[in-house]
């Protein structure tokens, strides 16, 4: 089907300043395929159902809208955690600022190195998981990412990795436009924790492809924040083997526009996929979680837990789907999306969906919007807790179900500390 002219024009305008990076033949082919996909689907427009709640204009335009820099925190997130740090400055790998990439149980290479190598394990994954995620719904910015990503790393975990790998993003140019691509393969029985945080660029397009092999475990904790003028579109594509575990948590604080998409396929029996998010927005904030979980094996469990705290005009959106394919019996699917609206100007839009083609499954979903419980607030105040502190306590209680999805207690404490600080900074008084 031919695309409308306006869409073709917008897509070509976006592509004009971009060049396909060099690489080995397979990498070049993967990028060219992605470019063809993108041209066939076009960039999202106002009539696209999948973009009904979120305007893509700032992501479509050829140049990045400028974003003010944040001076950085005295004590950056995850700084107390023993980890292997990989630093990207405005979307460019910084070897000086990064730790030595060699670590027992894991291989890490820069994307450019991997894609220049003729025979490489990443060949089977780069753009492959992204392509699988293009049906039934198109994800144009992911295709754009595969085609034009300029940097990133590929990570292969072969055993129990001694410490988490930390992708640390720094933003130093007000108009930087970064496209990063990461490929992660967690081999059979291996266990990897991936951390991500920091303002990456004025505009950030990030794609993470993760293959979790049989019996392997992947834990992912990311924080987006401290760059209020951020425009970001991120994708996670994950494929899960038998009895594997995938757990991903995202904290999002402020940001003009953030769209986090996840496409997770459970392809091996007895696999578990949990994806959770806590988003807090005050003022000019638009946060979109778009999640698609496909059950294509027996006896798998999936959980989607998304909580948003919104005020002062902030908008939160959620599109979440559980697709249970024929034969995916004994599926246990759960999805909850909730918002806490702290005033009458905040807005939450949700579209929860279930599509089930197997008959022996348990799937539930729920979506709610509410205000602070006045009874609880009075109860706390009557015990001497000041109103603002009481409200924060109730807000954190609301977010608890999402934060509880973080398994590592130290990492969870770090995230919680960040949330508490945000709430204090954004108090009314």
């Amino acid at each position: 089907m031919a695309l409308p002219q306006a869409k073709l024009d917008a897509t070509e305008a976006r592509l004009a300043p971009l060049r396909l990076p060099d690489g080995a033949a397979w990498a070049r082919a993967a990028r060219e395929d992605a470019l063809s996909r993108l041209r066939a689907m076009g960039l999202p427009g106002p009539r696209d159902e999948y973009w009904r709640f979120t305007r893509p204009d700032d992501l479509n335009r050829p140049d990045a809208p400028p974003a003010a820099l944040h001076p950085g925190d005295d004590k950056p997130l995850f700084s107390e955690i023993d980890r292997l740090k990989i630093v990207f400055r405005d979307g460019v790998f910084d070897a000086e600022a990064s730790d030595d990439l060699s670590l027992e149980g894991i291989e890490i290479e820069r994307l450019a190195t991997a894609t220049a190598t003729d025979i490489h394990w990443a060949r089977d994954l780069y753009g492959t998981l992204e392509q699988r995620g293009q049906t039934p719904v198109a994800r144009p910015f992911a295709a754009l990412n595969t085609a034009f990503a300029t940097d990133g790393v590929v990570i292969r975990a072969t055993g129990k990795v001694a410490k988490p790998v930390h992708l640390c993003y720094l933003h130093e140019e007000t108009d930087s436009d970064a496209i990063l691509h990461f490929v992660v393969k967690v081999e059979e029985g291996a266990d990897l924790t991936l951390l991500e945080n920091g303002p990456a660029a004025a505009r950030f397009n990030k794609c993470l492809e993760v293959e979790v092999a049989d019996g392997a475990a992947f834990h992912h904790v990311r924080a987006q924040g401290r760059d209020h003028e951020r425009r970001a579109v991120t994708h996670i594509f994950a494929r899960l083997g038998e009895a594997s575990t995938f757990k991903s948590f995202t904290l999002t604080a402020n940001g003009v526009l953030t769209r986090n998409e996840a496409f997770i396929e459970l392809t091996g029996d007895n696999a578990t996929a949990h994806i959770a998010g806590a988003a807090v927005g005050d003022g000019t904030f638009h946060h979109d979680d778009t999640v698609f979980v496909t059950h294509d094996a027996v006896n798998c469990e999936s959980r989607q837990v998304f909580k948003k705290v919104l005020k002062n005009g902030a908008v939160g959106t959620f599109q979440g789907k559980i697709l249970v394919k024929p034969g995916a019996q004994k599926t246990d699917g759960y999805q909850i999306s909730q918002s806490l609206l702290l005033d009458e100007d905040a807005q939450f839009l949700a579209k929860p969906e279930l599509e089930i083609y197997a008959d022996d499954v348990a799937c539930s979903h729920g979506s709610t919007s509410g205000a602070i419980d006045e009874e609880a607030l009075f109860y706390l105040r009557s015990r001497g807790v000041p109103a603002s502190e009481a409200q924060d306590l109730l807000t954190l209680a609301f977010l608890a179900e999402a934060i509880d999805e973080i398994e590592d207690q130290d990492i969870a404490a770090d995230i919680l500390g960040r949330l508490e600080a945000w709430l204090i900074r954004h108090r009314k008084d």
Partner: protein
Amino acid sequence: MLKINNLHVKLEDEDKQILKGVDLDVPAGTVHAIMGPNGSGKSTLSYVLSGRDGYEVTEGTATLEGQDILELEAEERAAAGLFLAFQYPVEIPGVGNMTFMRTALNAQRKARGEDEISAADFLKLIRAKAKELKIDADMLKRPVNVGFSGGEKKRNEILQMALLEPRMCILDETDSGLDVDAMKLVADGVNALRDAGRAFLVITHYQRLLDHIAPDVVHIMADGRIVKSGGPELAIEVETNGYADILAEVA
């Protein structure tokens, strides 16, 4: 301790007068009870004193040791030494009981210019107090009042009272929903806190609770006023004859 003078209160959103001139003086070291039929304004009095939204004081005063409490926020009243044991303690999912109580204690200490209590000292303190009220470690760990039985909720109220050591304690129908054993446990907890520097205002429908918490003075409230005051024998009269006789007598 607590002095209420000609207190008139209406609902904020409706033109409905609930309290129509309450006078009450509860000196330190005493236990006063307020009894009265449904709708007489007993619970409203407790809410107005503790600072709940939704009420408007149209006339009169209420002071705690000389300080006008009606001007204060709910949390300031708590820090000043006022405590309300709720008729229906609120369930707060996601907030641990222990976290809640430590936050409350430290907030009050901070408001009074005292140092915050350390986590270790708090643990010691709460365990000792909980033991007296037969509150187990599990109840301390669970979210505030979530999944608690009626008796557990009321014991949890008394635990907070024991922890925060308020000077003026208001108990709003603390006996409701309690069986005899639970009532005795709650009453023992209250009695243990009785001392010369503390006062209690016990709001109840029934004389039963007053068998366990012996009041110095009993007031009968009807239609937004204290209509009769007397000794403990007044409670027994209510239990025997109901409110009708007393109301007829004062009418």
